[in-house]
């Protein structure tokens, strides 16, 4: 499991495997929050306090991201509150609108120099590397259920993912409703050197030694291409299985675009 969870009298808390000082190469308080909400029975949630502690502005509003990626509903009158530690990478679910005490978490060893370099790289990419491939803001919003919630359309008993407008007889396909399988099988993979990576990843790729991508097959047919996360110690193989988590994808024009990344199972 990538995240650590602690339950106590104050609420339910989460941080990354790296502990409270770092959310990981492509993590932040929002990705931690989504991990926490996905691991907790759903309900309604108030995010007013949480959104005050995000490092960067998301490309679509936090409410939309949470509702696309989890089964929770954001409601300003809800009595369950989402919190984030203002200095550390810990998030919490509580029934109190104030929270001052956070528990201690373990931390997997990591290279602090890499952490610092990645932090600088994210800043450069978000604000300095604006030339990425054009994907309209409207498309990010329209496809959020599929990108973040992994929901597929159903057409003639087939699952369609990523989403399409019209089918092969030019009939409109209903919006995505059915969730893809939680794991998928690797059909093929590659690791791009930093020189070969898209410009969106130009600052991070050299630090990470490149970026890995997998083409996977879900149950019932759909296939997808995903960036591999947390693969620094493991090499994928064809027929390995992966699971999925919401992570930062890239930054552009001062905002972070979030999406789904694959993580090797069995490690």
């Amino acid at each position, binding site marked *: 499991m990538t995240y650590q969870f602690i339950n106590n009298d104050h609420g339910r808390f989460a941080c990354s495997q790296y502990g409270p000082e770092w959310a990981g190469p492509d993590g932040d308080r929002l990705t931690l929050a989504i991990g926490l909400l996905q691991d907790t029975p759903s309900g309604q949630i108030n995010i007013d306090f949480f959104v005050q502690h995000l490092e960067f502005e998301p490309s679509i509003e936090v409410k939309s991201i949470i509702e696309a990626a989890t089964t929770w509903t954001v409601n300003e009158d809800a009595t369950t509150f989402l919190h984030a530690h203002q200095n550390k990478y810990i998030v919490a679910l509580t029934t109190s609108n104030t929270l001052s005490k956070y528990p201690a978490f373990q931390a997997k060893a990591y290279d602090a120099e890499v952490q610092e370099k990645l932090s600088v790289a994210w800043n450069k990419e978000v604000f300095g590397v604006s030339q990425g*491939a054009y994907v309209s803001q409207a498309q990010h919003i329209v496809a959020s259920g599929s990108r973040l919630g992994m929901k597929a359309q159903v057409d003639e008993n087939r699952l369609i993912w*990523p989403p399409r407008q019209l089918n092969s007889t030019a009939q409109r396909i209903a919006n995505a409703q059915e969730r893809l399988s939680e794991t998928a099988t690797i*059909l093929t993979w*590659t690791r*791009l050197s930093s020189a070969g*990576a898209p410009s969106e990843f130009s600052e991070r790729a050299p630090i990470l030694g490149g970026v890995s*991508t997998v083409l996977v097959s879900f149950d019932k047919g759909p*296939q*997808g*291409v995903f960036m591999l996360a947390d693969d620094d110690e493991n090499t994928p193989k064809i027929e390995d299985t992966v699971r999925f988590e919401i992570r930062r994808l890239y930054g552009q024009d001062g905002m972070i675009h979030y999406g789904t990344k694959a993580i090797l199972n069995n490690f």
Partner: protein
Amino acid sequence: MVDVAMVGAGQTKFGNHPFGLKGMWSEAIEKAIESVDNDFHPKSVDEAFIGSIAFGGSQLGNTAALLTEHSGMGGVSVRRVENACASSGFALRDAWMAIKSGQADVVVAGGIEKMNDLSASRKRYWLGVSGDTEWERLAGLTFPGTYALTARRYFHEFESTHDDLVHVSVKNHMHGFQNEVAHLRKEISFEKANSGFMVADPLTLYDCCPTSDGASAVILVADHLAHQYTDTPVWVKGSGAGSDYLALHDRPSITQLCATQAAAKRAYSAANISAGDVDLAEVHDCFTIAEVLATEDLGFAARGMGGKFARDGEGRRNEGSVTINASGGLKSKGHPLGATGTGQAVEIFKQLRNQVEPTRQIRDAEIGLTHNVGGSGATCAVHVFGRER
């Protein structure tokens, strides 16, 4: 129906070209006109089609009119054609159809791209925009990545290894070494080609074509005008095109290009030939694995046998069943994106008229083929050429 003859063809040297867009295009047109045996006046052109992806990585408009204005064709009906790296392959097809339909008698098809005066960051941005930007690119893929995914899957499905790709690289560098217009004119050993740094695992530097500047153009005329310009026209016997899903993940199989298969079937049918009739083929080897797939999709090798085809040297000049990429292909001759498709046609024009350097002439060639692919296979144009009508 009208038959279509190619009476002129010319191109710049591919590589780092000292000229800008206007200068390169003018040079290609100048050489195309020079290659016409009898008098040819640019004012006789009825239509022009110019392939380019992005004119130096920038979204300039109305560039086709600018280029014809600077090459003696001011006032001609012209437009830009964009289908990624297959842009001028489709420009050639549009030109062929314009004559076939009887709407034009004299047509220029060409292509151009300026790539080597870009900053590294702009080039990295640009080289990925012809794929699926919403899902593939944001998963970290550029074209080396998509073809690497294909290569690894190909090795998994068939009896083939990276060594087969090395054979493709060595062959194409051997062919391109003697081509005066090639970008990378150097022969490489198997050992060197097998030791390049990893670009996208399992593809190394020597599996990837260079980014080149270049322009190319061909002059097509209707059959009744062919002998006004030359006694030895090259006939464009067939044209076929196809398309496929843009993203790999939407394709039932990533180890074959359905767009190529469809384009080849249509071109062979139009030319009334089969794959076995082809003597030389300029195929779209943007990455070595792409040539392996092309030899299968065009029908030169059975499915899954493209690796063995390369391993056995079947595509070597004047040795195998069909010469593949006598020019050096994209791997050695170079790949100026929008100029590549008609650049392939220039090579076929010269080969079928015995006008290439003597050391690299294909003996007794009667039928030539060009195969121009856009992106990772979303678009493809195939043309069949012959000495005989």
